[in-house]
């Protein structure tokens, strides 16, 4: 999880010049976009891209190999030895579902990720509104507290939470996991949303006030709709973070193991066959890859959210 975990603690500050990633379109390019780049640039980049992609290709290929093949020869021999190619099979996938119950784990992952993603948005949006458009004593202090908490690792909270949940008797249930994610994700949610909202033109608020709208109405009718992009960015962050999380799931999910925990089980029993691990691994990646590819734009915008200024 360290990947997205790191990102969730990102108070991103970009220099003033780079107002937005899309701005390159309006700006004169340093290089003519139609001109060919030097050959060596393309070769070096192709090599880097290959190095980035080939490990995953190895996993994908192995997931279609038989157990004896997977442990007996490298996955790349599929491309050099025709016999290895013809033995490819879908059996690992059916087996990983029947033996490791990846289907059940998939459901658990969904049942954890959806509430953990959707519920905090509204809560954080209200807080973001208060921080951006309301004046009150202690505002700066609270905001700084939240910025500071972005850095605090969630490990600090595990033992006390385990005890609180234990007293309440909710350990090992799905809400125990998603409630935890809501709590841990809150500082980032408030931070990103507040940063975006404070860039919205203050005049809109003023004119709404003059028209007699209350804060509550302004929030619902004006600010929330205008903030859709940042809400989407946060949702994608949180979705990927929760989906890929291992630590909280290990500690709080009990028998309702999500995909990451099931995958770790497979990793721990490689004697039973590497090929199951690969099928499980690929299956675990599908949802985040789809989410990522289809919503990449918002994701990038989320990364640069701190820099979007009016």
């Amino acid at each position, binding site marked *: *999880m*360290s*990947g997205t975990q*790191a*990102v969730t603690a990102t*108070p*991103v*500050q*970009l*220099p003033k*010049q*780079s*107002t937005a*990633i899309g*701005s390159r379109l309006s*700006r004169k*390019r340093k*290089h003519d*976009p139609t001109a060919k*780049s*030097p050959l060596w*640039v393309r070769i070096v980049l192709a090599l880097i*891209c290959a190095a*980035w992609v080939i490990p995953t290709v*190895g996993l994908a290929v192995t997931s279609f190999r038989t157990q004896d093949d*997977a442990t007996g020869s*490298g996955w790349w021999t599929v491309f050099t030895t025709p016999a290895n190619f013809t033995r490819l099979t879908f059996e690992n996938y059916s087996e990983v579902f029947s033996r490791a119950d990846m289907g059940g784990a998939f459901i658990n992952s*969904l*049942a954890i990720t*959806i*509430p953990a993603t*959707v519920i905090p948005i*509204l*809560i*954080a949006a209200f*807080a973001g509104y208060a921080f951006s458009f*309301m004046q009150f004593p202690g505002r700066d202090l609270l905001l700084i507290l939240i910025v500071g908490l*972005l*850095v*605090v*690792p969630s490990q*600090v909270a595990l*033992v006390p939470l385990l005890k609180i949940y234990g007293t309440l008797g909710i350990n090992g249930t799905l809400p125990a996991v998603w409630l935890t994610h*809501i*709590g841990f994700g809150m*500082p980032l949610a*408030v931070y990103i949303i507040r940063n975006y909202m404070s860039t919205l033109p203050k005049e809109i608020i003023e004119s709404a006030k003059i028209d007699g709208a209350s*804060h509550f109405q302004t929030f619902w009718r004006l600010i929330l709709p205008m903030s859709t992009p940042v809400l989407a960015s946060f949702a994608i962050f949180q979705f*990927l973070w929760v989906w890929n999380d291992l630590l909280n799931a290990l500690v709080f999910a009990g028998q309702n193991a999500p995909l*990451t925990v099931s*995958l770790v089980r497979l990793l721990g029993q490689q004697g039973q066959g*590497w090929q199951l691990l690969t099928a499980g691994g690929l299956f*675990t*990646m599908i949802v985040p890859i789809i989410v*990522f590819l289809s919503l*990449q734009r918002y994701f*990038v915008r989320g*990364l*640069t959210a*701190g820099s979007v200024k009016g």
Partner: protein
Amino acid sequence: MIKVLNALIAVLGGVAGAIVVYYLLNKLAELLPGRWEDRIKPYLYLLPALAAIGLYLIYPTIQTFVYSFANAQGTAFVGFSNFTDLLASKNFQNTLFNTLLWILVAPAGTIVIGLLIATLADRLRPGGEKLAKTLIFLPLAIGAVSAGAVWKFVYATNPPTQNQIGLLNGIWTGLGGDPVNWLQISTFRLNSFMLMVILLWIQAGFAMVLLSAAIKGVPTETLEAARLDGAGEGAIFFRIVIPQIRTTLITVFITVLIGVLKTFDIVYVMTNGNFNTNIIAVDFFNQLFTNNNFGYAAAIVVMLLIVMIPVLVFQVRQFRAEEAAR
């Protein structure tokens, strides 16, 4: 299926519940006389978020701090002995050393790779740039556990008498070397570096996206002027581009650094801290759940927090400077 249904009910209930709560809080505030209404309302809007933060982060942090001075079962206070015991143990010293190595190498490595890719990709045509960036960005989406599964097949080792199934050993033996057990050789901390490669693989895309945006933000006129003055590409990069994107470099560095300090899953999944690859977050988990030692576990987290204080201070100052510049 019932679970998904329950989850959807939780979502609808949660959102509806939140709306009702805010509506009621708002109504409550409106009952107050005007001056009080304006005073109270901001806090009411903040209340649920702050309650979540207080319950899930602030209270547990204090509790953990208290536990760090208590014994293994958390039943009696033992003063500083958790800290002194840990710091005196050779295993923990190794763990700290490894953590330090991660701190020194991983963020810097991520930046170098990210910067390299960002600079090169900037020279491609838009289509090629987008493809290259997407491919390199993708590992960030798949997460560390899946990444662990992927990299098992890179580092796998078989004895010399058998075929290699790990990519790295496939290449290595193909070049005539003897198979190397990459994750078990702790000489010069080779295995720790191998694990850092996985982090780098995941994080480089993140560095690339931010740095790429920053590089594109360097004013074209400045670059053109430098070219007219006869500066070489290398000089332009180091004397003009790097200073211009300094803030972003620092941001990326800090972010990856925070990620590194929290890194748990890569090491847990690949070696569980064995073969001298242990780092602080994994040691915490093992003290807590393998050795059942609350005191040590809490003390480790407190030390982690102490290490993070400079980062935290920097973060807050940075934020203040930004706000002042608004």
